[in-house]
């Protein structure tokens, strides 16, 4: 194999432009020399192994490694020589035979004084011997083991034990355990959110007493980031959603010749629910995650601790400006989003449904203004929920970047979920007060 490879290689190469005849010859010579060396090594190796095997067979018979002598109900084993890898195969056979012999007696004595060399193989075989007797309930005493083998023997003695069988909990029990674990986590989260809300209220009160402490620059900065820069994407997506709702409405309502009612449906749906909900979900994904990541990385780099040692309250300095920015930005974005959705729906009504803009507006004006108020009043609360969840999760970040990534994901999922829950709460609330 090796020979073929080198030869094939050289024939493929061919004489290059710079290779002289001498060089070719030299190369060929080198190859031949290499082949010879290879053959010689192989031959010598075979010989050496052969010789060693002979030594094993002649000089060391079974008896010389482990000898057994049965006396009444006790078995006396005497071990000598090298208990090493070289003789492991023979030794293994001997050990197994000794264990089999030991089945007939009650007590086994093992004298290791004659062993002058032992390695992991030997130590493990000794351990196997001991364990073999122990499993068969025979008493075994080992004497004469040289002191400096003690460490190795103890090490082997510790290893490879079967683990005690732990009965697997039943399906019901493990399901119950999982549920209780999940409930505990939810409870912990809720407590943290309430705590954060409380801390934010306290910080706001402190700011109201001393308004100069409010970090306006930071707030404006975040307002720009979560508000102004989100406008384009929010408008685009809500525009498309409005258009889709209108198209579906017209398509279904046409059968009943009730296309004009699509305008009512669109208006109610967008202003009450879809506008604010879609915007809140998008902001949770866009800004909530960035809050978590920012706060998390500050926590990770101990910047939050640094602020604290300088006597600053991270809630007041870092979190309050962010949450305030969100609470201001989300209603604005929700308003823009609702308008964009109505605009998109209006265009579809005009071109696809044949409802001209005048009658569209006419129909829209007939709707109660309450719908708009209901939708808009939800926005700041959703912003608060997103802000609290994002901050809490950000501060939960531990020292590693895995935990940063995980908390960011968790933050988005929880924020979106809670936004929808809050929406549900508002729906029941407004239904019960009849708005």
């Amino acid at each position, binding site marked *: 194999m090796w020979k073929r490879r080198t030869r094939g290689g050289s024939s493929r190469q061919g004489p290059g432009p710079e290779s002289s005849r001498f060089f070719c010859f030299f190369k060929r010579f080198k190859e031949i020399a290499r082949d010879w060396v290879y053959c010689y090594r192989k031959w010598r190796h075979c010989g050496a192994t052969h010789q060693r095997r002979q030594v094993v067979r002649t000089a060391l018979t079974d008896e010389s490694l482990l000898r057994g002598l049965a006396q009444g109900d006790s078995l006396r084993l005497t071990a000598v020589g090298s208990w090493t890898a070289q003789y492991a195969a023979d030794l293994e056979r001997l050990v197994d035979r000794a264990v089999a012999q030991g089945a007939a007696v009650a007590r086994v004595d093992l004298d290791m004084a004659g062993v002058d060399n032992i390695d992991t193989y030997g130590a493990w075989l000794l351990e196997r011997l001991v364990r073999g007797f122990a499993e068969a309930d025979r008493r075994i005493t080992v004497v004469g083991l040289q002191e400096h083998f003690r460490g190795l023997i103890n090490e082997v003695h510790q290893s490879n034990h079967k683990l005690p069988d732990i009965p697997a909990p039943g399906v019901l029990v493990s399901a119950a355990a999982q549920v209780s674990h999940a409930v505990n986590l939810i409870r912990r989260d809720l407590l943290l959110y309430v705590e954060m809300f409380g801390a934010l209220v306290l910080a706001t009160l402190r700011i109201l007493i001393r308004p100069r402490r409010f970090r306006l620059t930071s707030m404006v900065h975040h307002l720009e980031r979560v508000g102004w820069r989100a406008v384009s994407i929010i408008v685009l997506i809500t525009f498309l959603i409005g258009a889709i709702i209108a198209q579906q409405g017209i398509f279904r309502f046409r059968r009943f010749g009730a296309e004009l009612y699509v305008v009512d449906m669109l208006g109610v749906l967008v202003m009450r629910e879809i506008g604010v909900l879609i915007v809140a979900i998008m902001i949770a994904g866009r800004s909530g995650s960035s809050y978590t990541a920012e706060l998390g990385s500050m926590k990770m*780099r*101990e*910047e939050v*601790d*640094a602020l*604290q*040692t*300088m*006597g*600053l309250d991270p809630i007041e300095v870092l979190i309050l400006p962010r949450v305030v920015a969100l609470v201001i930005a989300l209603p604005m974005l929700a308003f823009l989003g609702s308008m964009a959705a109505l605009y998109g729906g209006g265009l579809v009504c005009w071109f696809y449904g044949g409802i001209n803009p005048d009658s569209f507006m006419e129909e829209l004006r007939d709707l109660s203004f309450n719908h708009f108020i209901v939708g808009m009043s939800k926005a700041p609360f959703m912003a608060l929920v997103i802000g609290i969840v994002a901050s809490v999760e950000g501060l939960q970040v531990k020292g590693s970047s895995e935990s940063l990534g995980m908390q960011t994901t968790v933050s988005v999922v929880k924020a979106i979920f809670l936004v929808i829950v809050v929406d549900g709460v508002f729906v029941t609330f407004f239904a019960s007060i009849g708005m």
Partner: protein
Amino acid sequence: MTVPVVVEQIEKDFGAYPALRGVSLKVETGELVALLGPSGSGKTTLLRVVAGLEQPERGRVLFGDIDVSTLSLRERRIGFVFQHYALFRHMSVLDNVAFGLRVRPRHTRPPADEINRRARELLDLVQLAGFEKRYPSQLSGGQRQRVALARALAIEPQVLLLDEPFGALDAKVRKELRQWLRELHTRLGHTTLFVTHDQDEAFELAHRVAILNEGRIEQIGTPREILQRPATEFVAKFVDGIVWRGGEAVRPVMGDSLTPAPLADLSMSA
């Protein structure tokens, strides 16, 4: 104005796991004490408790004779240097140093040019004059850590706490900074607690070294005391260069002969 720090029987748990189990320690005024130990021994937790970043379950910390639990973090006036610098990334070097003073309430805050003057002085002190306008990302690790130290010193701390300050730096820079920090400490003389897992650092820098293991102080003493008379087997095994042989410490101390130190007063844990 620097004060002695007394730590009395501090216990701190993280969930079911005890991080500190009754740690007591006294750091004299102007003394530099190193907390040395393997990871998980509680040395950083102890530092954070002294700083007030963690609340202990039991025990108390005194600055001078004031129990710090009665003080707010601002009133404690702590200079804390973190392992990963924890500089504010969006602020220039000068702003970082001046930050601690600028955020003080108005009646205790020095005027703006006084703050700037002091920040510049501190940058001078940490040999970073001329770097005022740079941002942390434009500095090397050693420079960042010096900015962090300047920031910690800016608030005129009563106590200086360093959490593995050179842990993130390479060996050469670490050695230089070690030297430099010692000179700085001789000049300024703050009471300093200093966490490290680098034994050379601890023995070279500190007046006294406290060796922690599993939330307890195994031994506290001068470097020489610890090297010559390790109090427990753990100390002997943990500190390089001590040979522990059958309950006796054998150690060549800085050219001393190899005679085993008698350890009659030794209380050994088996």
